[in-house]
């Protein structure tokens, strides 16, 4: 039996690292993105408090990546003997690890950039309160790539 990270009994550890990455990378991205939106929103609200509901929605848009990460993590935890299922072999554990990467990395980066787009949309809304539909759509474009990553992650995890 070999030693270290690649010994035969490390499968569960690898899977767990994967779940952790999915949660904290995507979650950190969302935190940064929502934070950017929040700062822009607070600025707009000083002048136009009546826009609260609308800017809140725009601020929350980059928050979904964190949820996607959580989702993948939970499905993983439910299969690897933490919340259910059985502890995976080393090979399976590495597969889980790989499956968690897309939503972790794409979630992190897309949430940050969606946050920037959200902040810009909030400024757009401040000048033209009637263009909420358009303002909402621009950040939503960025999210597409997080959804694609989520899809690959979740399809892989649930088929393993």
């Amino acid at each position, binding site marked *: 039996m070999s030693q270290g990270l690649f010994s035969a009994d490390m499968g569960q550890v690898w899977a767990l690292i994967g779940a952790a990455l999915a949660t904290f990378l995507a979650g950190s991205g969302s935190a940064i993105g929502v934070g950017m939106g929040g700062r822009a929103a607070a600025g707009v609200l000083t002048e136009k408090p009546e826009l609260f509901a609308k800017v809140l929605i725009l601020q*929350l*848009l980059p928050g979904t990546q964190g949820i*996607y990460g959580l*989702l993948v993590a939970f499905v993983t935890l439910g299969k690897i003997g933490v919340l259910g299922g059985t502890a995976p072999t080393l090979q399976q554990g590495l597969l889980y690890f790989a499956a968690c990467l897309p939503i972790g990395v794409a979630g992190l980066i897309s949430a940050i950039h969606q946050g920037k787009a959200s902040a810009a949309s909030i400024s757009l809304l401040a000048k033209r309160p009637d263009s*909420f*539909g358009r303002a909402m759509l621009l950040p939503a474009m960025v999210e597409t790539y997080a959804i694609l990553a989520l899809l690959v992650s979740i*399809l892989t995890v649930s088929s393993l």
Partner: protein
Amino acid sequence: MSVVSMKKIWLCGLESEREALLRLVQKKRVLQVREEEHRHLTSPDVRDAVQAAERKAHAAEQALKILDRYAPDQGGLLASLAGVPDKSYEDWLKESREQADLEAKAAAVIEADKQVTEAKAVIVRTEMLMENILPWKDFPRPMNTEETQSCRILMGTLPGMVPEGEVRAFLAEEVPEAQAYEIEMIDPADSQTALILVCLKDIADEVEDCLRRKGFARPLIQSDKTPKELLAELETQHGEARQKAEEKENWLKERGCDRAGLQFLYDDATLEKGRLEAVAKAGTSKEVFFLTGYVPEKAADALKKELEEKFTCSVEFCPMEEGEAPVLLKNNSFSTPTESVVASYGLPGVGEIDPTSIMSIFYYVLFGLMLSDAGYGLLMVIGCGIALKKFPGMKKGTRQMLTMFFWCGVSTTIWGLLFGSFFGDVIDVVAHTFFGVDPAKEVFRPLWFAPIKKPMRLLIYSFLIGIIHLFTGLAIKGFQLLKQKRVMDFIGGVLSWYLLLIGLILLLLPSDLFASISGSAIPLPPAVQSAAKILAIAGAVGLLLFAAWDKKNFGLRLALGAYEIYGITGWLSDVLSYSRLLALGLATGVIASVINSMGTMFGGGVIGAIIFIVIFLVGHALNMAINLLGAYVHTNRLQYVEFFGKFYEGGGNAFEPMTADTAKYYHMEDI
């Protein structure tokens, strides 16, 4: 269903009746005045009048804000849903004549508030001065006593607590020539030390400079009255100001009764401004005015009849150019709520049909599929249903939005039942944990299948829905082209695409690639397969030859055609984009299940049940909120980018009639 057809009208009437006529037009809400240059007529200068109306509205608004401070209106959280009260046209006209009274009321409120502010400023100032003078209260001479024949008297304060010895030591060091002086410490307090220093005139300047460096400051008031007299005077001023502020505040607190009038003043001034803006677009002579505008065809004859009956005026219908008319959408009650979705993308332009009714069906279906939980759907249906029933007078925009979410809720409920999701898997979880049902037994079964168990199956269906959605968009494009008799564009831009895409799909279905995604290929008879090949090739050739048929240069035409075929990648990414239907649907269901299993971590029993209920309420409220947002945003995206991208540009101008609906507090009835 469609874009309302419009008529262009010429309206000529008497200047003397202009105001009354425009009021009626405002009530009817069917005439949009057109901006135009009128030859031989002058454009009236309404800037001063507009400003006057704006001032009135502003005064009313300001007065209302003051009243909100002193006599707040008891309105609940749901008050905004209740809408605004109706007011009949006759009442409106009658009250409008009393506008001057209302203006006076607004001015009185604003003036009273100003007096309160001023009185409060006096209170603050007198209090500060009294504090400043207080240390000198026993000084028997006027405050501005400066000098005797040979001495200077320095009155003032030093910051902090300074003992007499310290002052003397300091002076001895800085101004050694000063020997003869007298200090009286008046009031040594923590914050400041008041003192009087008497010294010979020849060294007075040096002594004062030296004290100033220590922070010496003379009293704020220099007066020929004694401190006692001053204090008494300030006391009186203070008392008077206090009394006045209280009096005015009490008066303002009773002015809640003026609120209705002030609100009316605001509305009336706003409508007045609307009429003036219409006047600015009209042409006038000494006796008559003339304007052009647009009226929906259905309302045109009635408007003409009513105007000509009531006023000395002439209404004529006149021809107009294509694409000139402003756009108003008309749909049935099922689709109308999604008009705002279309409008925020852009209203139909020249040659485009109103996509609302077709889009609304997809809108509800896609929204429901993304949220797909019967529990959340029922909450939406019940919440929106109650609000719509209970507040019939709510504003049009709010009503439409709630109606839209009502139908979205219905769709969500249906999809939830199909996929077996009711607050996630709460029924099973509760049955297993609290009622001892065998955990292996499924209690609440999906009517169709559970996406979490067969995600690939739902992925395929998502793509299928996407293809239907996109093909519908392409069909609308074809319809629009045929309607405009652009047959060649139809062949090159629509028909060829259908052939190519259907051919490719039929080729894909029996292939290994499809089998590897869905688990099983769909076998097709060889005849269909060879037909599919022919279709695909015919489509590709059609695109190559006809996509740019209007180009004279044949080489360029082929090159552009080839580029059009490259657009197949766009179709691929469009279809893949519908995978979000699966992703968001799974997100709702899985997170809901996670919340439920977190709730059961403390087991059964009473305490377990209480903890479960708390986690259930908080968790599902959060999950529902975030997924509602997601479903809403991504439904819009699929409509705007994928669906509208196939056929729709928008770019029509909205129909903006003269209307009494710019009023904020009252709704003018149109009977």
